[in-house]
């Protein structure tokens, strides 16, 4: 049974066009899904719908086979959630906040809490407002994972953290939850994080799902052809090549993304289209993302 099932989710805010336009998604146990998209693409809305915080205008959400609006407590006890900007009562000390969470989650692991407190060096007696952003995010992470959730939802979990803290934050989440076979759904603008952690990639653009693929397969299947100087007719010819996805000008060069095997593509472009200068390479996820959602030439 899928841990999270979203079917045809639409959601709009007052006076604005739909933030989500019929997104469907199914996440199996143990998957680590990275959700990427441009700002305003609908990632946060999708994650909030998935966490049972927003009700979809249309479509259905089931988490662990349950409706989060019908049985919210059952669902949320098995869920961990860290928002991009998490609201926290500022006057509580970190220890008090953790104690509050401990009381709310029946599966709270006290040993894990102690381990994390020591490992993350959280000053438990300090009020939240007095902690640095990195320290406060660590407290939130502890609160989200010490009950060993079956599904962890992280919305830009490492936003605003320095690279070291970011890496530590994410790797700790993965390490701890992988032991349980927990499922992780996270969004990020850092493609390196997604590449390092996610097993599956979902790209959202303007409220619609653009890509949903295993990350490794996605990277294997796509390559880019770089033409040092391509006049307009060449671009039109490229469009006719099998597997063409998008092209994008960068300076005088043209980058064209194909869903093809690189060797096969190279021979086709240089032999059939007489483009000897073409260079074929694999792309990093970030370049691929820009190629897919950036402006097309």
């Amino acid at each position, binding site marked *: 049974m899928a841990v999270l099932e979203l079917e045809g989710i639409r959601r709009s*805010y*007052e006076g604005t066009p739909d933030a989500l336009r019929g997104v469907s998604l199914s996440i199996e146990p143990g998957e680590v899904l990275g959700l990427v998209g441009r700002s305003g693409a609908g990632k946060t809305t999708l994650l909030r719908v998935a*966490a049972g*915080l*927003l*009700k979809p205008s249309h479509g259905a959400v089931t988490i662990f086979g349950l409706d989060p*609006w019908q049985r*919210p*407590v*059952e*669902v*949320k*006890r098995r*869920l961990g*959630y860290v*928002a991009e*900007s*998490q*609201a*926290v*009562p*500022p*006057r*509580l*000390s970190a*220890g*008090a906040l953790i*104690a*509050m*969470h*401990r*009381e*709310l*989650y*029946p*599966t*709270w*692991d*006290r*040993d*894990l809490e102690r381990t994390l407190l020591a490992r993350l060096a959280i000053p*438990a*007696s*300090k*009020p*939240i*407002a*007095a902690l640095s*952003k990195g320290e*406060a*995010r660590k407290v*939130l992470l502890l609160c989200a994972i010490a009950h*060993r959730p079956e599904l962890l939802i992280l919305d830009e979990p490492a936003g605003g953290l320095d690279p070291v803290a970011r890496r530590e934050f994410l790797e700790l989440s993965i390490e701890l939850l992988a032991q349980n076979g927990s499922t992780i759904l996270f969004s990020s603008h850092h493609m390196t994080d997604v590449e390092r952690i996610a097993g599956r990639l979902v790209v959202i653009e303007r409220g619609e799902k653009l890509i949903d693929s295993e990350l490794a397969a996605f990277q294997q299947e796509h390559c880019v052809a770089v033409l040092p100087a391509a006049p307009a007719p060449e671009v039109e010819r490229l469009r006719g090549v099998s597997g063409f996805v998008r092209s994008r000008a960068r300076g005088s060069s043209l980058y064209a993304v194909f869903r093809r095997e690189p060797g096969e593509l190279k021979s086709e472009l240089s032999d059939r289209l007489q483009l000897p200068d073409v260079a074929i390479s694999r792309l990093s996820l970030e370049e691929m993302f820009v190629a897919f959602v950036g402006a097309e030439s």
Partner: protein
Amino acid sequence: MIPASLRLSWATRSTDGRGVLVVVGAVGAFTFGTVLSAATRNDGSHLAFWCSAVVTACLIGVDFPGTGHFRWSEFELSLPIAPLARARAHLVLCFAVWLLPSLVGYALNQLGVVGGRLPQSEALVALGNAAAGVVLATALRHSLALQRSLGGAALRLAVAPVMLAAAAVRSPMFAAFMLVLAAPLLAVAHRVAARAPELFLPPVAEPPILGPITSPRPEVPDQLDTRTTFEADAAEPRSFGRLALRYSAGGAYPVLMLVMLALWSLGINSGWLQVAAANTMLLAMLVVSHAMWSTRLLRLSHLPYPRARLFRFVAWPPLAAIALGLGLALALPAPDPLLRARTRAGATFLESPLGGWQLTTGEPPLVTAPDGESHRPLARPFGLGSLVVAYDPYEIPRASSQSFHTRQVGRLLADRGLSLPPEQIEERFGSGPNPYLGLGSARYPELQKPAGLARGLVGAAAVLIVALIGLHVVVRPGAAVNPNRWRWDALYIAFFGLFMLTQFLQLLALSRYDGTDPIAILLAHAGRPLVDHAALSLPLAVALVALLYRSLLRRFAQMEPPLRAKKMDAWFIEI
């Protein structure tokens, strides 16, 4: 051309068009009050002043143009504008919104600039003074720098007594005194702001540690703790409950709301606050304000805490405050004199309480004594083209004979199931009515007819029902309402419109010198059958209360956290 600093100051304090509403509302209300005063030949300054104060307070509370939104303040300070220019702009806004209409209104009446000084009723003087108290309180509140230098807590505590004392003082000059005091306070505050603008930023000081929340379960030694779950703890999340209670009923604002709710409930149901409709709607507005505040708890809705329990922290504090007030009202009913003296158009009349009044169309029937003396009670029209008029069948004009007095009082007593020998009635009113003593006051304890438990319970049920209906304005599916901003949809407009209507109708009633309140008469009429058939109406009211509460629970379960959470950052920090 508007200077940039003024334009900026306006912009930072008129987010969501609130400032436009404030000025249009305040000036409009002032104009309305002035015209009404001129039309009714009654007190000009206080009426107009009160209109302005009510509208402004309703729209923005007593904060405007106070310290404003902290984020805006930071933004303002980051811009290259001279502190003095910014302070001047704030001051101009203060005067424009609050003081100017007040001072003009005051000059109209007290200085007799137009048409000379007009007679003033005591109620209007009290209201005017209270409104001036609001201005002074605003000045004190606005003077953030002053507060810090003199002790903000003491000043905040002084605000409520200042307003109450102002309402208690019967001299119209007191309002002038407070306005004169408020102006330099504002000026001083702005001067301080110009020199030390950082004082107007939110305090960055570390908040006090409230101490760790103790787990209800003692710490288990490591070597014995082989389990990884704490189910007993999870069954009773007391820490969350304490936190939620602290937010919904622990801060200065919610406490103020709750105290006002208790006082208003007490006043309405005990009879101390005569103006039922306006005060009941004000009570509903307080409930709405508190709910807008407490539904911020939804920002913690990612935690597995049952919505039904969370709802208790939203609904129970105001309902408990109301219940406290209503309970006290049942224990402490206000004296209910059978006749009151009223002065109208230079003559004094004796009138029965509103419950004894009748409604009719056309002229009220003539009341004729056995000796042939007759009197037609004055018709009080409802206005707006209504054919229905209200009248007091026991009304006694000053010019009537002693025997007519005795007959009318005898009729009233008989209808109430009481009696007083005619000679005592004559003794009571032989030397003319005393406006400070009603029939049934201390001299005649046997005529003290308590309001009755049925009336008290029906009134209490009505207040509770109004409060629960008021909660529906805030508690409804969709995103929680931002407490800093009203959502101007049909429900809010209807609620706010009704609120304003009752306030203006009340002003209309106050502007009459006899103080007749048509809405109160209508309500008294509507409520009479409910009281008479309390055995039926009370169970129905209880069922309605239960139904409304269940409806609120269902609606609350479908509520979402606020969409733009960062606007609601008074309670939480965002990490």
